[in-house]
């Protein structure tokens, strides 16, 4: 699963064609869903596959088809410095986070709920109900805004 996730991520950020990059993203998200399954939450794992693989990746591939980029013209990083600089920044961040994660002693607490699907639903409708409503409004506004923006671009 780790290998699937990391190979998918590498394809997603390194391939020259955007379609291959989206395919790599799908592979990576399936791997992440499997990791969630190992982390004892099958509900989030299913949601990951439904939302990311089913919706987000399909939307991105639609956008690639609608705004077909000229792949022949310019591929690769924008300047000579961008590749090494980007790689060193990313390596620095990854290394820093890894050292931080391995050096810190994380305190383990006693579990007070079981983290099952039923308790997720209960908490979502009691303790987190305000956030739930807000995220619904955010999604609604995002959908309407996306429609409006895409339509304006077509008219011009």
């Amino acid at each position, binding site marked *: 699963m780790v290998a699937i996730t990391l190979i998918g991520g590498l394809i997603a*950020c390194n391939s020259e064609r955007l379609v291959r990059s989206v395919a790599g993203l799908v592979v990576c998200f399936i791997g992440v869903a499997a990791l969630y399954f190992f982390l004892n939450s099958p509900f989030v794992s299913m949601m990951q596959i439904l939302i990311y693989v089913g919706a987000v990746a399909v939307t991105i591939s639609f956008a690639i088809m609608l705004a077909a980029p000229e792949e022949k013209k310019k591929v690769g990083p924008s300047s000579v410095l961008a590749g090494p600089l980007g790689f060193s920044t990313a390596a620095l*961040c990854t290394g820093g986070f890894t050292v931080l994660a391995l050096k810190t002693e994380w305190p383990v607490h006693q579990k007070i*709920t079981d983290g099952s699907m039923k308790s997720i639903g209960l908490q979502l409708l009691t303790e987190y109900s305000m956030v739930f409503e807000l995220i619904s409004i955010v999604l609604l506004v995002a959908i309407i805004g996306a429609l409006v923006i895409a339509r304006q671009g077509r008219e011009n």
Partner: protein
Amino acid sequence: MSLFGLYNDLNTYLVIGAMLFGMGLYGIVTRRTLIGMLIAAELILAGASVNFMAFNRFTAPDPVAGQIFTLFIMAIAAAEAAIGLSIIIAVYGHFKSIDAEDTAKLKG
């Protein structure tokens, strides 16, 4: 620790999350096209979600909170992808290009 016990360890997942984050950062810096940057941003969000789920599983007292947080991250990522892609399509209508350097003018 044996290789098979590794999946039951917090640090494994934290390292995976850090690597996903690093790949996303590399993609955002080096990509030319706007869609490529969006894909890399999704990788960064996935790294953050993996971290949340790992802490949720191993250390948090309430294992529901992290799952709900990850669900909200997914919703925000979906909204972000929808808005970003519609902006990209509008930009493509203006400039006939989604290269981040061709689209340098604000008022086309």
